[in-house]
């Protein structure tokens, strides 16, 4: 109400103005704003050019984005490709890690999965298998198996996630794997920290982490990756 009274007072003081009078008045008071809206319309040729440009831009979008959005999911939606188009990052509060009574080999056979695994059940000892299950939807996020290989007196751990799944507890191993090496056209990254050797590589929609406890030799990592790839 108070604002309205003020406005009426201003109108009375100024009297009735025409539209052009008001515009002139505004130009005088606020030149920086009024000038922007007071531009002359572009010539017909320029407007035509802008219109054609817009049409071309829309056509390019349709030509590039639509095929990509249709084709990429099809490429990644295979039965065992990990669904890379659907990135999922999980913090430790979002999943439970529990010991399971089956081995990764048994899980693979039972679920008709095609991920790589170490067939080390005769050569190794003391297998401990863990399964990471999402608290949100019950999805198996990671399978992990640890074995003691008495021939080399080493404890090796293999963790497998789908390529689209990132678990926060693997952030650090990912960060330290800064070196690159190629085996059978597979790029693997590796690193050694506090006497533990790590490597990471991807194949067929899955990401593989290998860790050798108290391991210092990257060549041993390369051997293990080659061994894993041979099981394809």
């Amino acid at each position, binding site marked *: 109400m108070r604002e309205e009274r003020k406005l009426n007072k201003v109108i009375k003081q100024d009297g009735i103005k025409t539209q052009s009078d008001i515009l002139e008045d505004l130009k005088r008071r606020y030149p920086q704003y009024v000038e922007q809206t007071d531009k002359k319309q572009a010539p017909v040729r320029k407007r035509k050019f802008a219109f054609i440009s817009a049409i071309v831009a829309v056509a390019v979008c349709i030509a590039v984005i639509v095929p990509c959005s249709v084709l990429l999911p099809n490429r990644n939606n295979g039965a065992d490709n990990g669904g890379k188009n659907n990135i999922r990052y999980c913090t430790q509060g979002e999943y*439970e890690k529990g010991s399971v009574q089956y081995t990764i080999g048994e899980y693979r056979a039972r679920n008709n999965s095609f991920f790589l695994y170490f067939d080390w059940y005769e050569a190794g000892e003391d297998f*401990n298998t863990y399964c990471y299950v999402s608290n949100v939807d019950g999805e198996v996020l990671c399978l992990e198996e640890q074995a003691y290989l008495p021939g080399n007196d080493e404890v090796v751990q293999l963790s497998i996630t789908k390529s689209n799944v990132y678990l926060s507890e693997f952030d650090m191993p990912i960060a330290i794997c800064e070196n690159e090496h190629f085996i059978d056209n597979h790029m693997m990254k590796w690193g050694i920290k506090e006497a533990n050797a790590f490597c990471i590589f991807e194949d067929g929609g899955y990401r593989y982490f290998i860790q050798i406890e108290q391991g210092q030799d990257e060549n041993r990592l390369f051997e293990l990756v080659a061994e894993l790839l041979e099981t394809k």
Partner: protein
Amino acid sequence: MNKTNRIKTCALLLLCLPFCGGWTSAPNNQTDDDRYVGVELIATYASSETISYVSKQVVEDITTANGTPRYFAVSGMQNGCGAVAGGIIVGFYDKYYGNLIPNWDSYYSTGRYKGQDGTYVQTLLFDLYNRMQTNVVAPGVSQDEFKNGLQSYVVDQGYNLQYTSLGTGNNFNYSTFKTAISNNEATVLFVQPSNLYSLQTVGGEDHLISSNLSGNHVMVAYGYYEVKYTLSNGTRTDKYLYVATGLSGSSTAFYKVGSYVDAAYKVTIN
């Protein structure tokens, strides 16, 4: 608000910031009632530091015999870092006091520690979890709950346990710690959210990668590492503790000597 007023307001806010409790960087003084909970290890790639050196000398690289076992919390052990740290200590000493984990050896004949067994270690961890009253009074454990729970377990297995303080705050007694490591004794650390480090040599440079513990945490220190760099413009010596983090993705890490600790205790079992 015109430009001058905006600048004045910003300056005033900046001056006020140091007086706001939440913005101070100094660690809070901890009491025995502080709780230690399960934490997330957050890797901060951006803070990785490259150390370019002319030469490098590892001055000391000493750990307990075969380090420690690497145990971690499993499903049903929410805020279980105290139980895991206690379990690592029990697993470590089981090599020397065989009944600490009944019917099971925590090590192979070569001396190497076994991984986390799904039966025996899991039973041990849940036992400690309960003895430490984890999450009973409040989330996690206090220092006293940790100490009493671990001691109760060890005594029940027929052994004695003593804690020897290695300092608090910024007064961690590094030389006593080194002696403890020489004597093959493990140390438990109670820390606030702080940084853990990994050191990686890549192409003639060292990369120091830091990651952040998201909450108060209990972990086990089992060695020390000192490295001296000769740089193009001087020298630099870095000192770290080896720690068993109790976190499965990164079971070991470095903790900088001189970092703030709420408490550190050498644990002796006999």
